[in-house]
């Protein structure tokens, strides 16, 4: 299960290591770390958002070990993608490695390819794909589109974006 966790670190060196150690000890797979160093909390701590993949039964243990290390755990929740967007890709979508394209989005942790419809009418004819991307917020949608834009340029794919996003 994918879990998001908001924690707060003291604003002194070495804190991140104290936060990451319990995760590795509990064999949780860390997907993203968003470290908001500029946005100190009123308590003068540094807010950090983690997204990890772990079994639900491990969560209490992870939380306890983090707190033992002096890390404040503010919120633990199932990771929710609040925004989604559809994008059409046209070109040699499959031959240029569709899995790669999906991986580039998925490995961000803040977004994932949730659905894919693919049409390959024949060899040497352009394929078309409709991709649905889910992300945690609007900003992350834009970031994943930027990634997709780079990948599309490399693979010579035409990316058709919805009219209401910045192209």
């Amino acid at each position, binding site marked *: 299960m994918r879990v998001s966790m908001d924690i707060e670190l003291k604003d002194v060196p070495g804190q991140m290591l104290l936060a990451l150690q319990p995760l590795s000890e509990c064999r949780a797979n860390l997907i993203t770390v968003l470290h908001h160093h500029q946005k100190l909390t009123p308590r003068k701590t540094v807010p950090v958002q983690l997204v990890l993949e772990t079994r639900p039964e491990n969560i209490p243990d992870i939380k306890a070990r983090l707190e033992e290390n002096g890390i404040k755990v503010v919120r633990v929740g199932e990771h929710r993608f609040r925004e989604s967007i559809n994008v059409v890709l046209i070109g040699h979508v499959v031959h240029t490695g569709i899995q790669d394209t999906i991986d580039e989005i998925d490995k961000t942790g803040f977004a994932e390819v949730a659905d894919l419809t693919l049409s390959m009418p024949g060899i040497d004819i352009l394929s078309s794909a409709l991709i649905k991307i889910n992300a945690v917020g609007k900003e992350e949608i834009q970031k994943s589109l930027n990634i997709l834009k780079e990948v599309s340029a490399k693979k010579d794919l035409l990316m058709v*974006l919805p009219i209401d996003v910045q192209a």
Partner: protein
Amino acid sequence: MKTVRCSIIGFGAIGQGVAEVLLMKKEYLENMGLDVRVIAVVDSRGATLSPEGVDLADCLARKKEKGTVAQEKITGLEVIKSIDHELVIETTPTNIETGGAGLQNMLAAFEKGLDVVTSNKGPLTLKYRELVETAKAAGSKFRFEATVGGSMPVINFAKEVLAGNNIRSIKGILNGTCNYILTRMLEERASYTDILAESMELGIAETDPTYDVEGIDTACKLVILANAIFGLDTTYGDVDVTGITKITPEALEMAYENGHVIKLIGEVSRDRIHVAPRLVPINHPLAVGGTLNVASLDTELAGEITVTGKGAGSVETASAILSDLVSIYREQ
């Protein structure tokens, strides 16, 4: 009655549309106190001239029958330079590489202090600033509503009807040929190549459709909007352009099943000018079909305002020329 002596330079589809509209609207113009007298009709082979006013019906008939109105060997540029009149209606073909004859004609007209109404995008795409400044210095009126969106009012709409409103952006479909192709590809589940061939047969696409399908025509119109409405000084090179040649029927169908159509959308604001195929929700005001054009203006005070209309066609485009003509001389 005020007499407006004018020349029609360029007698292709749009020039002929202007002649038809002037014949149709003769009484209307006279009731307004305007005697619009065409003293020269010029095509690529020569001209028909008459200081008292040429017979437009006869010009149309001869053009149809013989392919030209030429009775005298004289060019548009020579007419502008040597014959007394007030207004040049410039409807020669668009050339976006050099500006073509249109650019020379417009500059010569301003040099003589003549007013210009045009449907020719080329000169405005290349030399907007120079043309506007030359016209202003000469005291000439310069109107070009017909260059963007055919009959659909955009430029005068933004500058006059919506005067006082800060326009934040304009988004729309500014090329009827692309709209037709994309609409028909979805309807027929047919390939781009098949529908392009159909469009050529119907005269909707030109024999060389590059300008339209590669998004160049849309980009030129955006440049004119950027300069005329947003006060920028841009040219074609500043536009980020993607056309529709790669669009597949499968992509259109997938998008449709997902509640969207794919349209070639031009977008202009102070920061960016962009042309690309985009996903447009089926019930969105910009999701118009066939050869229609549409533009949505995002305004500071009035919010979003959308206009739609026929983007091409001789009489339709001539209607924009007529409204420019009326707006120049009505108040004088």
